[in-house]
């Protein structure tokens, strides 16, 4: 499933990486501890987090994530957004909680592969 389908289904606000919405989302990972995300997430994952500082772009770039979803309507910090635009990392905003955001993405992805 591509990022654009998830953006549409969850009504996500696209803050950066508009040109990367055709990226294939292979899986997902939820976490706010950066070391945990670095150790356990995978390439092509859509990362759901509530961290908004610029280090999230470094982690997403390092792990080749499909994108980052910020939850509870959180806006990325200014330098986060600048970095994301430079690195071409999609940052998306969900108005839902982390639990509900991850749950819905999980359902979309598992329906697709079922």
């Amino acid at each position: 499933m591509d990022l654009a389908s998830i953006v549409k289904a969850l009504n996500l606000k696209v803050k950066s990486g508009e040109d990367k919405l055709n990226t294939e989302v292979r899986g997902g990972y939820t976490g706010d501890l950066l070391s945990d995300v670095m150790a356990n997430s995978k390439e092509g994952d859509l990362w759901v987090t509530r961290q908004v500082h610029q280090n999230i772009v470094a982690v997403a770039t390092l792990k080749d994530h499909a994108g980052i979803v910020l939850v509870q309507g959180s806006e990325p910090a200014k330098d986060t957004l600048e970095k994301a635009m430079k690195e071409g990392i999609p940052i998306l905003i969900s108005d839902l909680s982390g639990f509900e955001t991850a749950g819905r993405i999980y359902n979309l992805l598992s329906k697709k592969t079922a």
Partner: protein
Amino acid sequence: MGLSRDVVRKASLVAYESEINIVSYARKGMIRLRVVPESILIEAIDEGQGIADIELAMQPGYSTATDKIREMGFGAGMGLCNIKSFSDTFLISSEVGKGTYLKMIIKTNNRSLNS
């Protein structure tokens, strides 16, 4: 340089975790990188408080991070474990009040130029 994505990713992760440790705990520090065809050597050398009990510091989840560091999602007590698990060789030495030295080697699976 013909390095695989996997090797570059491992090296980046190891360097990044080392950098976070230096910024979070040391007074000053440096990261030295040496790349040869068959391996990447990363050394993280700092001056600072050092680590009193290395065995304890290596335990997953053990952290002395401040609340400020934790709020940003660092200080999960996974940094040294990650550095070790993403390296092929890992060495650590530390002296309290002086600083910490980490040495990591990541194999590239490329053949040596000399062989």
